[in-house]
């Protein structure tokens, strides 16, 4: 069965810390991997990764895909309280074109 596993499930840090969130996937006909941030409402898109080894950056956030290890990491540097959210990793399964989600990592950034 297709699955996406995220770790840790929750993380509490202080402002200014750097965090690394992990995601591993086992998905039939893998097409791409996505990271979303979910605060109170809808998941909002962060990154889409299709090629191994190419880092994507957006401000203090960056992410990279390792197709050999079937994994991805999301880094957040100099964390702020506004980064507190659930970070969702999802992998696209080819054929059905459905996104398979992990259970998320709940990040809490304390002042």
């Amino acid at each position, binding site marked *: 069965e297709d699955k996406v596993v995220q770790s840790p499930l929750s993380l509490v840090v202080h402002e200014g810390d750097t965090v690394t969130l992990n995601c591993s996937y086992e998905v039939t006909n893998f*097409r*791409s991997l*996505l990271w979303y941030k*979910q605060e109170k*409402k*809808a*998941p*909002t*898109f962060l990154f*889409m990764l*299709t090629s191994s080894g190419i880092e994507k950056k957006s401000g203090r956030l960056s992410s990279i895909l390792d197709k050999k290890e079937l994994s991805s990491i999301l880094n957040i540097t100099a964390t702020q309280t506004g980064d507190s959210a*659930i970070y*969702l990793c*999802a992998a*696209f399964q*080819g054929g*059905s*074109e*459905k*996104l*398979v*989600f992990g*259970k*998320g990592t*709940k990040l809490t950034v304390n002042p």
Partner: protein
Amino acid sequence: DTAVSQTPKYLVTQMGNDKSIKCEQNLGHDTMYWYKQDSKKFLKIMFSYNNKELIINETVPNRFSPKSPDKAHLNLHINSLELGDSAVYFCASSQDPPAMYGYTFGSGTRLTVV
């Protein structure tokens, strides 16, 4: 505003009732989805439609029936509601191919069955 919009945002209803959740997207996307997010925040796909045609139908009780009158709308009708149906239901849409463009999510409908 270009978006995926769902109504209602909150729905509280009694067991046994029938209810509908509506979803509309004005992004011109071809594919629309319904996802269920449980109390542990786990998002699981229920259905997807591409141009009004059912593409994905996961193992969902047949009390749940999606209806797509046109490619901009995908509604979810639920019969004989049960306590276990309480969850947040997200509608999403994507351009084709979804694997290249990802999803845009609606803001969710929190369903509480009492």
